[in-house]
């Protein structure tokens, strides 16, 4: 078993290395147009957004609609660090993510006492408040936003941060803390009765999700060099939620696949202009009506399923959808 796991990890590591060097080579040879590059970066950012939101919605079962607000905080804080304070990129990204995580704790504490739809509305409200405040702060450009942020998000950093996010969240979910989160999703009262500090774990999951959303925001700000409050509307939160539900609540690989697929569909429909969003929305409704559990359900796409080995994905089989 141990040898098999080692072998599987090696295969994944090799695949990732091939992906990284392949694209790095293609970029060096100028084989990728700027359109492809933009979508490649968006893919990475969307994966981070989807995976971090899945931790909150899919694994802990707390419906949150304010992910764009977290992304905005990460983007603005890191942009202030590099643009206004002249700090290095890594420090800016770290500070941006940490600040978002702290905000996640602060605004997560009160409404996490709420359940279900009420939490959704409260987080939606927080997202709008953050955006509303950003419009009113002149230091960060008000409604016009911040322009001229140095373009420091390179393919290497994007790749490292995306892989690290997925790995960290995967390990968190497989730890005892992650199990506690899943227990809360399955039945909060039962989890409470089993001695799990539900508020602590809900806030923990919420702030970890916020931290990574802030990371996504920081990467976004340093690639597109222009951020505006207008970028982080509720539609952005919806986008992340769509990826999570589309991929399957409680499936990390599902989130990754959905993030990639949705970015590709968006890019492919770009030439259609106004019709693009119409088709996108229609696709969304059709997929939800015919496959409401999402592409992957709660299953993970693993090498085992690929190689048709026995054993399945263990714990995941017992999961049901969040209700």
């Amino acid at each position, binding site marked *: 078993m141990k040898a098999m796991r080692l072998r599987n990890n090696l295969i994944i590591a090799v695949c990732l290395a091939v992906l990284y060097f392949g694209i790095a080579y293609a970029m060096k040879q100028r084989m990728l147009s700027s359109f492809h590059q933009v979508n490649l970066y968006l893919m990475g950012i969307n994966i981070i957004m989807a995976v971090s939101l899945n931790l909150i*919605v899919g694994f802990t079962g707390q*419906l949150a609609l304010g992910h764009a607000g977290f992304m905005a905080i990460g983007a603005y804080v890191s942009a202030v660090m590099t643009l206004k304070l002249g700090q290095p990129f890594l420090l800016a990204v770290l500070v941006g993510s940490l600040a978002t995580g702290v905000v996640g704790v602060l605004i997560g504490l*009160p*409404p996490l*006492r*709420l*359940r*279900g*739809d*009420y939490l*959704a*509305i*409260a987080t*939606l*409200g*927080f997202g*709008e*408040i953050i955006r*509303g*405040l950003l*419009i*009113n702060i002149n230091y960060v450009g008000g409604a016009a936003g911040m322009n001229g942020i140095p373009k420091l998000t390179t393919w290497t950093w994007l790749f490292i941060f995306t892989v690290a996010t997925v790995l960290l969240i995967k390990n968190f979910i497989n730890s005892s803390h992650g199990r506690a989160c899943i227990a809360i999703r399955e039945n909060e*009262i039962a989890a409470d009765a089993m001695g799990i500090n539900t508020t602590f774990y809900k806030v923990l999951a919420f702030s970890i999700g916020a931290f990574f959303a802030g990371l996504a925001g920081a990467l976004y700000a340093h690639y597109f060099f222009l951020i505006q409050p207008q970028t982080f509307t*509720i*539609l952005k939160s*919806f986008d992340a*939620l*769509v990826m999570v*539900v*589309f991929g399957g*609540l409680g499936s990390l690989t599902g989130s990754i696949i959905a993030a990639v697929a949705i970015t590709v569909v968006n890019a492919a429909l770009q030439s259609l202009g*106004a*019709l*693009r*969003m*119409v088709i*996108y*929305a*229609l696709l*969304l*409704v059709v997929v*939800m*009506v015919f496959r*409401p*559990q999402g592409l992957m359900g709660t299953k993970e796409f693993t090498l085992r399923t690929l190689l048709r080995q026995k054993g399945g994905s263990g714990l995941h089989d017992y999961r049901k*959808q*969040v*209700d």
Partner: protein
Amino acid sequence: MDLFFAQLINGISLGSIYALIALGYTMVYGIIQLINFAHGEILMVGAFVGFFAIAKYDMNFFAAMLLAMLASALLGVIIERVAYKPLRNSGRLAALITAIGVSLFLQNGGLFVFGTNFQSFPQAFPKKTFQFLDGMITITSYQILILVVTILMMLFLNYIVSYTKTGKAMRAVSYDKDAALMMGINVDTIISATFAIGSAFAAVAGVLLGLYYQTVHPLMGFMPGLKAFVAAVLGGIGIIPGAMAGGFLLGIVEALVSGYWSTNYRDVVVFLILIVFLIVKPSGLFGKDTGEKV
């Protein structure tokens, strides 16, 4: 004092419109526990139907409103049947995402069909200004119209819900769906009827909104829809008098913040109130606290 009264009257007009939208939200939520994000877009379609009826076909204002109500009611029922009904048993998140999808579809469909420009809504109703108390209070005929129409619609809704068979069935379904089914109530029909009534109210709000701001736009429904939803939550979601009270409260607060502080802080204040409310009294103004049972 002039400013206070002016903003109060603005707030009541805006609040009436929010209340009308919030009613539809709250009815749908009460009956199938779904946040119908597409409600704001149903409002938009109603506003456009009214716009075309008046601008292109020279219809009377009230006839146009009636037509808009019919069109929106039909749209609401179609959305319910096509998008929400298949998902009734497969988790609330899936239904929520579908509602977001329908909302995006109608918004962008609207942008595609009607274009991205603001279209000016015809002044189909004579605009007069009335002054009271030596000019301290100024009311336009539009504001009176909005208030009167809203009150009439609310009385009408009260009649439907309290005294008709459909209304009784609606209350029964929202109280206990399975028990209602066993009592011989056709739950599907009642849910469709709820969508039809809620959507018709949204259409009235849409036409009034068009008249009030004198423009219509494919994205006009989104923000009022969101605000009205906040209003529904403030009043206690699923509770009809709560939606009315929440709508008026929100409209007045919004107008006072714009008048005395800054329009930029309007939305921030609205959502802050929402969060304070959710933390202090999550069941809303008129709601009762119900503990969760195992």
